[in-house]
């Protein structure tokens, strides 16, 4: 978590002090790339949950893609809130650090939920999907 806080402060200093257009463009591209990748991974998650044949494969899509896309979109939000602030005051930095805290909690909590669900499915009577077309 200390790394998060340091990263936020570093980004805040860079975005607020260096007004060179190239630097600002790079920061914008960073935010947009993070947001776009997050949306792409969430799209992949949705398609995976819809299209995969059985529970285990669906949870594979949901567990990984969901956590990663959440982390990426929240990162974009945090960086954008720092960059768009006119003056860098206490409230803005605190909000950005709080968003990074959410990332940490999701990073712990979401895989735990996925693990618990996988175990519940594994202990019950769900048959894993097998690709019979290639086997025969």
């Amino acid at each position, binding site marked *: 978590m200390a790394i998060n806080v340091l990263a936020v402060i570093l980004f805040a200093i860079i975005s607020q002090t260096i007004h060179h257009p190239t630097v600002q463009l790079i920061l914008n591209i960073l935010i947009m790339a993070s947001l776009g990748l997050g949306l792409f991974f969430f799209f992949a998650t949705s398609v995976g*949950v*819809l299209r995969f044949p059985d529970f285990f494969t669906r949870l594979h899509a949901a567990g990984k893609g969901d956590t990663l896309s959440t982390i990426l979109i929240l990162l974009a939000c945090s960086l954008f809130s720092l960059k768009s602030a006119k003056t860098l005051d206490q409230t803005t930095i605190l909000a950005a650090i709080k*968003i990074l805290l*959410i990332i940490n*909690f999701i990073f712990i909590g979401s895989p735990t939920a*996925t693990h618990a669900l996988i*175990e519940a*499915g594994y*202990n019950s*009577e769900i048959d894993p999907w097998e690709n019979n077309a290639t086997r025969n």
Partner: protein
Amino acid sequence: MINIFTWASILLIVLMLMLVYRIIVGPTVIDRIVAVNVIGTKSIVLIVLMGIIFDRLAMFVDIAIGYGLLNFIASLAAAKYFKKHHRIDSKNITATEHTAKGATNGH
């Protein structure tokens, strides 16, 4: 650039609408739990996005922290439920319980 965040949140909601298909159709309960879990995580993201759109991020981020901390408790409870009740599929419940009853009556 706010506009982009608005479009992003609309895209998120549309993708959540796609997940609702899995909630409606999902052959077993646990498929539905997976879809609801994804919707729950995405509503955290939507709250933060709304905070940026409304320019009240410091206000909304507290709600998002609350969700981020508590989101996995419900999934954990639902998963632990299946430790005792091993049957996932609700359609087979009546059939198996009837056969079990018949077996005990027969003896």
